[in-house]
């Protein structure tokens, strides 16, 4: 019971990050490999704010603002000039940005891991299970954020424009949609979600280092691919699935050391059965 709960809340974290990958992929048609490092940026923003005596709420705001600025600047400086370039060039640039962010963090904060105590949470017992309050908060807030995002995309002018750009950039422009602006907004939203993920992540593992974003980044990317990259509900489902499986594996002593292997095996298995991921859409070939 508590394992499932922890899994769901870890899954919510993966889902929040996976949304950034999947939205950017769907709309800008690129894999933003530096997305995981935005979590690290958020974590250091939280560390800095708390160290300066700031409240946890303020830390969250600072993290969101910082991550959004990073997301927008990275898109503008590194990716926008490559619009229309080969996917490989964009991918290599993204990897470069990832190393760049890690190096900057190392220069400013050093390579050593630093403790970040966001807040100390107890547990509540429901029936026989002990469930950590941080898991409950993560799960509820994560669910609210994702529901909000879903409503935003489906029901607002900007959200619809995002769907239009993701389906057909040229046709979207013919509607009068400023494609560059929509891509920028997508990066901003993805980064804001990553900032939220970073605070939840620190609630679970209260420590940060320059390479903090790598592992959750890769896991969330895996989640996005499992769910079908480009699909928003897919990223949510993929994230939650991965989180639950990870916690279940960790709770079984024989499996625990192989948790990551199990997760990637699941990725491979799903892709073998359904190469476009659980909710992925087949790209129609344009004539």
């Amino acid at each position, binding site marked *: 019971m508590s394992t499932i709960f922890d899994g769901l809340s870890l899954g919510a974290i993966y889902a929040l990050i996976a949304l950034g990958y999947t939205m950017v992929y769907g709309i800008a048609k690129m894999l933003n490999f530096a997305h995981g490092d935005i979590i690290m940026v958020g974590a250091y923003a939280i560390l800095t704010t708390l160290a300066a005596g700031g409240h946890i709420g303020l830390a969250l705001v600072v993290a969101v603002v910082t991550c959004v600025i990073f997301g927008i600047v990275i898109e503008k400086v590194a990716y926008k000039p490559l619009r229309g370039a080969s996917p490989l060039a964009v991918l290599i640039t993204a990897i470069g940005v990832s190393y760049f962010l890690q190096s900057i963090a190392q220069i400013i904060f050093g390579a050593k891991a630093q403790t970040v105590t966001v807040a100390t949470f107890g547990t509540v017992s429901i029936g026989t299970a002990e469930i950590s309050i941080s898991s409950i908060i993560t799960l509820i807030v994560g669910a609210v954020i994702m529901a909000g995002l879903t409503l935003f995309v489906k029901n607002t002018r900007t959200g619809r424009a995002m769907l239009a750009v993701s389906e057909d950039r040229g046709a979207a422009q013919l509607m009068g*949609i*400023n494609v560059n602006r929509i891509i920028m907004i997508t990066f901003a939203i993805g980064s804001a979600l990553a900032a939220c993920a970073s605070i939840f992540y620190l609630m679970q593992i209260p420590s940060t280092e320059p390479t903090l974003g790598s592992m959750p980044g890769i896991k969330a990317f895996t989640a996005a691919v499992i769910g079908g990259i480009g699909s928003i509900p897919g990223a949510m489902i993929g994230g939650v699935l991965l989180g639950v499986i990870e916690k279940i594996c960790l709770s079984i002593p024989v499996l625990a050391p192989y948790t990551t292997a199990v997760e990637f095996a699941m990725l491979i298995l799903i892709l073998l059965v359904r190469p476009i991921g659980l909710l992925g859409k087949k790209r129609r070939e344009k004539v």
Partner: protein
Amino acid sequence: MALLEVKNLEVCYGVIRALKGINFEVNQGEIVSLIGANGAGKTTTMQSIMGLIPIKSGTVTYDGQVINKIPGHKLVSLGMSQVPEGRRVFQELTVYENLVLGAYAQKDKKRIKDDIDEICTRFPRLGERKKQVAGTLSGGEQQMLAMGRAMMSHPKLLMLDEPSMGLSPLLVDQVFEIIKDYHKSGVTILLVEQNAKKALSISDRAYVLETGSITMEGKATDLLNDESVKKAYLGE
């Protein structure tokens, strides 16, 4: 007065010169068609006017303003609208959402609603299928949707790229009726067609495009009777 004026327009795809410096104009209130075989450069012309592909040289003037340096998305609010080749409706969105996107420049929700009602009167099939996902519409319905979507922005100049492509003769007739009708409401039309006979029959003037150059121009009635046009494009 020329509403749209294209001067020495040159467009290249890498080393291929798709447009070799073409000149044409569309006057206020006209229907002008651009006819030519597959690969002549018609779509390239249409897309470069709307800023979808970069221009190598030349100018495009709309309503007295040089527009080829203006970002493409801003042209819609100037009164230009295009029904692209192959329809390109948003397949995963509903008919209603497609129409709403057509009014992207319009922020007044009441106005958008009224306009959608008007489009649904013009295209009853769309009215019946508002909630249907566009990808599940038939080819003809998708063409209607693409036209309705382009009309949502209340263009002064409507450009259509092969609206009859892939449609049954009956639907082709319907499409041309709709264009004629829309023109009567005061909208200037630039029409690209491979179906030259149909296009010429509703046009005031026309240009013939051949491998990136305009080789003939004139009144539509004259071109309909021109021997070389008859041979090459009318199948007579």
